[in-house]
């Protein structure tokens, strides 16, 4: 326990030493903080309409102006961050958990199972993600859960393939052979010995994937197929903003800026995390 706490501290310190990593940490921290405490931060109810005050520019009462229904854009941006994380975190970590398990089983298990899982992964990967998402949403209807499931399903193969490759690299290493010769079960070998050596790489991948998922959710919402109205989402803000860009630019800014900032933040964080956890890079440093 003490060891893992110290490792986490080393990682955080390592990230913070890198200026871009520090910036990523701050941005991601701010997004997570605002998402968790959205209810206390937002000055207005994000779904309360006030049509008389619609399409206003920024002011002290409405920092990012108002939308076509007179709703406070700043409040919708903050609450939209909550939605983005509600989609991105379960989707990415769910995909990582399932991909990791299947990938390790594929890499360590019998050949036929490996072939079957690879075929499954390749089949899923052969669908363009957005088209697949559109098809599923068209069939079952848009909702937060649908978006999470679609993103999870399409991301599993990526994690699975990386986990499989890492497992194949490790399966004949001496410490695994030693465990096996001592009669350790497959579950023990995978869970206790393989997992700690693979998880770092997947964590980096997950950090880099979060902005992709946020952008995908925003993309579906931009097409009107993400979360249901009136729930605020950055993509929906962007969509409304695009439709009304000739009347007011503030909705596009309100919807677009958080996506850009979140993407940069998670990318900086992911890259710094990679630099810290990758033994080769760490050695060079």
């Amino acid at each position: 326990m003490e060891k893992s706490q110290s490792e986490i501290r080393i990682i955080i310190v390592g990230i913070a030493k890198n200026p871009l990593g520090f910036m990523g940490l701050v941005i991601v921290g701010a997004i997570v903080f605002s998402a968790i405490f959205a209810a206390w931060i937002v000055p207005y109810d994000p779904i309360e309409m006030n049509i008389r005050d619609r399409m206003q520019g920024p002011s002290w009462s409405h920092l990012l102006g108002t939308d076509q229904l007179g709703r406070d854009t700043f409040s919708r941006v903050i609450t939209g961050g909550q939605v983005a994380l509600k989609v991105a975190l379960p989707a990415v970590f769910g995909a990582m958990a399932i991909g990791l398990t299947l990938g390790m089983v594929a890499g360590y298990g019998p050949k036929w199972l490996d072939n079957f899982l690879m075929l499954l992964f390749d089949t899923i990967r052969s669908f363009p993600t957005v088209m697949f998402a559109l098809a599923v949403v068209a069939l079952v209807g848009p909702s937060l859960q649908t978006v999470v499931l679609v993103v999870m399903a399409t991301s599993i193969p990526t994690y699975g393939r990386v986990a499989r490759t890492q497992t194949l690299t490790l399966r004949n290493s001496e410490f695994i052979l030693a465990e096996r010769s001592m009669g350790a079960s497959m579950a023990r070998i995978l869970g206790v010995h393989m997992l700690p050596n693979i998880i770092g790489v997947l964590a980096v991948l997950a950090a880099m994937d979060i902005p992709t998922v946020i952008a995908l959710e925003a993309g579906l919402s931009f097409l009107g197929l993400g979360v249901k109205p009136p729930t605020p989402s950055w993509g929906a803000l962007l969509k409304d903003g695009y439709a009304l860009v000739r009347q007011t630019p503030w909705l596009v800014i309100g919807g677009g800026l958080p996506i850009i900032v979140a993407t940069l933040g998670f990318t900086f964080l992911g890259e710094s995390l990679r630099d810290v956890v990758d033994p080769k890079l760490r050695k060079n440093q």
Partner: protein
Amino acid sequence: MKIEWTKTPIGRRKFLKGATALGATAALPMGFGGSALAQESGTLRVRAYGDAPNMDPAHSVGVVEEEIHSSIYNKLVQYKPGSEWGWQLDAASSIEQVDPTHIKFALRDDIGFTNGHGAMTAEDVKFSFERIIADETESPNKPDMGPLSHVEVTGEREGTIVLNEPFAPLWSIALPYITGNIVSKSAVEGAGGRINSEPVAESGPYLRASWSPKAKTVLQRNPDWKGDAPAWDTIEIYPIDDENTAEIAFEAGELDLTRVSLGSVARYRDGVPNGGTLVENPSLFYVWLGMNLDHPKLQNQKLRQAIQHAIDVPTILEASYFGAADPSTGIIAPGLAGNRAEGLVAAEANVEKAMALLAESGESNVTLTLDILNKTTYTTMAQVIQAMLAQIGIALEINVLESGAFWASGDNENLQLVLNRYSMAPDPSYATAWFTSAQAGIWNWERFRNEEFDAIHSAASAETDTAKRATMYQRAQDLMEESGAYRFITHEATPVIHSSRVIPALRPDGLSLLRYFGKA
């Protein structure tokens, strides 16, 4: 091209004299002085909201293609530009309804087809019209021709259109619109009976010079056109789906005319860039909230009426159309026979009445879904409706659908509420046609079934007395509203901006009649 024709024994002036009063009157004010302006050269650049790959009127899919067809082909009569619906003579030198089922016409003697297909004759008219109703043509526009029986050719350029029964829409949506285009019999037969993306023979004031898919269609003045010369040498039509993009193109001086979004109307009312002008026309489209009468949750008429009264249409229009559209009273727009001055349910909400109706219905904890198309206008409208229904205690969940899924909703038995918008041709029968019992589950998504309505729809098409016809259609809309299945919202509007060098020729609903465009 050389057009060869023989002079008709009756002169053009004589035919004009014998034309029906409306046609003759309409023929005089053309909206622009053709001869002087036509001598000047120039290119008119306009925007269409879609591409026009098909040059066969029998398979035309709507106004985008018709804008081109009406410039390169002729009809017996064309819509008259202006603020009131009417028609004027085109290829016909005279046309007269001699009895409820017979329309006599005579063609001008100076119209010919390109590519050596000779002068336009009554045989071409017969071929063009009968081709539309022939089963083998499989024309989606066949219903527009109604009970057309055949065309009787009585002379080289004379004939009679024979109907199986009286059909008032013949004058409003058949002859002056898509199905009225006259094609060359010899050219189409020579092409195997079907025109594709290349017009096989043209006859209008313009010829289609080129078509770059999804980029541009170019029309050029027909050098052999003997009618009133068109004002512009060249018309370039740019397919631009997005109105914001089109507005930017106009402001950059790249377009002379474009339809603009309703959200931009307020800005353009303050001034159109480059000395341009904003023209605000009403539209024929109709938008409404529909309720599926077959759905178990919507069986209670009081509940449906409560929903009708809870919805405040002016607020919806303010939020979604920025106040640039007026409330509607039904499916038939102002300017058409059958438009109601007032609906049975006022445009403004009556929350107290809605709550009383809901209490009378005995329903409680009502939760419903509203299906909408994934466009900002509808999501905005839906959220306003959601808030209004919440006021009376009805929880509404909004289902946003992409266009493929949305337009397949007709046979969706689970559909509850739906925000819908249909396009329209300038005849009331075109609106009521979609709400008959036979259309239930096809285009009648509300599954509204009413024998009296069906009877009115059938009878009104055959009624030639405009006043009686109007009363019939008004009653039809009363029946729709009484069912509680409809909350009529708006007919929208068609705002158009044009540059200072253009005198636009627009239908009353704001759509372009390119062949009549003038120069300022």
